[in-house]
């Protein structure tokens, strides 16, 4: 069981800007990537940070983005370079 996304799934990171403790980096909001690993499920850190249980647990994925998708040419990287982040299911939308 890998939760709502399978390995290889194309996803988009939510564009939202909620206040408080958030574990999805700003530079990836709204970017499109590919699920490359499923880590299991973990208590929601955005709730844990406020003393809540963080339950139900959320599935956590490693999502791969191309540098070009992320920075649109404005950075010091080679054409095939990539960046990944570990993102909880609630931050991902299917493509």
């Amino acid at each position, binding site marked *: 069981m890998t939760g709502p996304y399978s390995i290889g799934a194309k996803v988009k990171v939510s564009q939202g800007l909620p206040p408080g403790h958030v574990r999805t*980096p700003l530079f990836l909001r709204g970017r499109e990537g590919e699920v490359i690993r499923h880590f299991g499920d973990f208590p929601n850190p955005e709730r844990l940070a406020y003393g809540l249980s963080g339950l139900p647990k959320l599935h956590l994925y*490693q999502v791969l983005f191309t540098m070009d998708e*992320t920075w649109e040419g404005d950075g010091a990287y080679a054409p095939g*370079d*990539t*960046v*990944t982040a570990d993102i909880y299911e609630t931050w991902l939308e299917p493509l």
Partner: protein
Amino acid sequence: MSTHEHHDHGHDHSHGHAHDHTTFQPDIREPSEEWEFLEIALRELLIDKGVITAREVQDQIEAWEKKSPEGGARVVAKAWTDDGFRQRLLEDGNAAVAELGFEIEALKLVALENTDDLHHMVVCTLCSCYPRPLLGVPPLWYKSREYRSRAVREPRAILAEFGTELPETTEVRVVDSTADCRYLVIPRRPDGTEGMSEAELAALVSRDSMIGTATAFAPDGEGRSG
């Protein structure tokens, strides 16, 4: 003496906690940033209320300071010489390093293998997540705003600053450690190391090569190898 030498101990001792009156002397003597004052206030409150003791704070700091990159280097050297271990490490990092006596509680340890085609470099853009049980206390640059912001955007520039030149045919994959996982990079085994013992190989595995800003040292001691 610290700025907290004159801390008022006139509080009520009737809360039932046995004070040992050990004091805690912080490493940073002159707090200046907001977070430093916040840490002091929180620590002193927790100690005053008997939730933790000053001794426990000191013991924990010393326990972390005993960890060092030698731990991670042992893991990498074993992965280089024992293919079964390498496979187990890639499949389940926590279980594999436990074979060598390293316990990583709660967090998921993920080993990333560098090859000629793929070079991983780890950062935590949100804070400073780091595989401390295997690498010890992170270097200051790893926690710096500069590294954290530049690593994801100009990784090739950072690599160059660390003396690491990789061909464009090698994919540089920056791994942002944003959640419940901790990443250990297994650097590519340098050429010319056939027949070396595990202990000799471990000496080639630098801290930076396990973060991915550098490669492992060449066996001739010339620093890096491709």
